[in-house]
């Protein structure tokens, strides 16, 4: 198995403002969002990062995508460090999250060309990829419609395609089916399976158990910034289904009763 992603003791804390302290109902001035996270992902697998809201999933993904820097530890994508070789890492990853938006004034066609140029994809390759991806997602029908005038499903399809204009080795999807209708969600999940078949590595962050059970090869359960469990989906669901396993681990870790 070829290791594409190696995460080593990743840590990240945030200073809390008074407003945030009130919201979080805490007197602590610092919140540890990710605490000593270590895991790997291999070529051709879908790795699921499962956890409740505020568990540290998005922070982990943002560090991997080089949007924010870790306070400690490191991560390597195809051997490139997210701390010292940010631009190399950016060339190797695709990142899709609701936090990243596309400009409403532009058409999918324009956006594809613009991001292809930023990723340094040559024009011929970009044109070929545009044809294949637009056709696969049915974007050609609205390729010249301004992004702001598209429906949520259409926007998500365009965002997904834009995130992989440069054919990255590692694709990070944060809640990729959130807010989508069942038809669009099916298109997206089918595409993730296709990407895996092509040998791409996918990191999938979600709190939807069924999505994990359907797609993931291995799963990391993250609670309060710590990786509580890391195993194949098969092993994690040997005795109980994934949902029961997750809640059992959650109660054990937090002491809260569900």
């Amino acid at each position, binding site marked *: 198995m070829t290791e594409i992603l190696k995460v080593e003791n990743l840590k990240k804390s945030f200073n809390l403002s008074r407003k945030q302290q009130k919201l979080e109902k805490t007197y602590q001035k610092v919140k540890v969002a990710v605490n000593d996270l270590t895991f790997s992902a291999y070529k051709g697998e879908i790795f699921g990062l499962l956890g409740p809201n505020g568990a540290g999933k998005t922070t982990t993904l943002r560090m991997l995508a080089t949007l924010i820097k870790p306070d400690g530890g490191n991560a390597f994508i195809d051997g490139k460090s997210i701390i010292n070789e940010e*631009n190399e890492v950016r060339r190797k990853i695709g990142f899709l999250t609701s936090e990243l938006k596309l400009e*409403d004034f532009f058409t999918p066609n324009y956006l594809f060309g613009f*991001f292809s140029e930023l990723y340094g994809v040559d024009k011929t390759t970009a044109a070929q990829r545009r044809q294949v991806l637009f056709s696969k997602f049915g974007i050609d029908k609205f390729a010249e419609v301004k992004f702001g005038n598209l429906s949520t499903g259409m926007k998500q399809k365009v965002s997904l395609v*834009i995130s992989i204009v440069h054919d990255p080795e590692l694709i990070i999807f944060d809640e990729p089916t959130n807010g989508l209708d069942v038809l669009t969600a099916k298109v997206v999940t089918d595409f993730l399976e296709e990407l895996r078949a092509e040998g791409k590595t996918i990191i999938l962050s979600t709190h939807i158990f069924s999505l994990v059970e359907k797609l993931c090869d291995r799963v990391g359960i993250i609670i309060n910034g710590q990786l509580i469990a890391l195993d194949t989906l098969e092993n994690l669901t040997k005795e109980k289904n994934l949902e029961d396993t997750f809640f059992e681990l959650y109660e054990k870790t937090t002491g809260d009763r569900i």
Partner: protein
Amino acid sequence: MKNIFTIIKKEFSRFFKDKRMVITVLLPGLLIFAVYSLMGTVFSGMESVDENYKPKAYIVAAPQNLEETFSSILEITEKPSLEEAKKAVTEGELDIVVVFPSDFSQTIGTATPPDVKIFYNSAERNSVYGYTFVTAVLGQINTSAFTVNAASDKFDLATGRDITGNLMSTIMPMLMFALLASGCIAVAPESIAGEKERGTMATMLITPIRRVELALGKIISLTCFALLSGISSFLGVILSLPKLMGGMVGAEAAAFYSVGDYFMVLAIIISVVLVIISAFSVVSAYAKSVKEAGSLISPLMILVIVLGMATMFFAGNVPHVAIYIVPLLGSGLAMSSIMSFSVNPLGFALSIISNLVITAAFVVLLAFMFKSEKIMFKK
């Protein structure tokens, strides 16, 4: 380098797709034309002169009883001839020429009262002051006994060039600074704080584009948009010039300046826009939203206008060439010197260099800000 052009292309595409933005940028020029044409009708010399100033006058055939009065209030100057004296008024060396008719004493108070001619230069504040002063003194004698400037001679000896130079050097820096700043405020917050607020900046930040390329691409394109606004405003000023000066100068006013003058003004405008747009961009990058950026930029906008206004107080006398290094103030002074046909080449060069250095510092700061997660992703 290629990425800078990619960003510039994208910014242009975004700008021209938004009709409101284009109108906002081009509107100041039209407004200026309308407002200044109106202002021309009410524009009058409101400049003050030192109250102890004695206007320099050349007086022809002054009646004996007035000679003493004039000597006490005016600095009587000798000139070889009347024509020489009038030329000196035009050139600003002399303030006024007062010509009494040779038969003044005989004809005063008769059915054909004598006409006193006072030649002055309306582009020179001291000359206007002298004219007003002498008219007031004569008015105290007996206004019905003689007339002043009743003949059809051309008494205002100022040339259109003088009037244009005087007016333009006074108003141009303040006016251009205000217009350029308003052009910059129309585009910078939207392009930087707006992208941050909408989440489209983060999408660019996960691509391998170098932050300095992103900063340069943004600043170059925003400078172009603000320049559009500046050029539109400049044209507005030039076209409204004849009306602004109440007919004292015709449509040929724009021709008083050489092509070189226009190029120098353009160079100053570009360098000023670079400074303003890069400063506004830094503030916009710091702000969390377009609204916050607008609020934070407002004091800067006032500062820019004040620096433009400050050039008026120098009235063409810059005490030391080092003042040209002060960002924006130096540009205003350089612009003022071009407009008054008395360019200081060193001052001009220093002001441009100073602006470019400041802009480079802002670009580096902006690139640093694009790298900072605390600034780009603060909630």
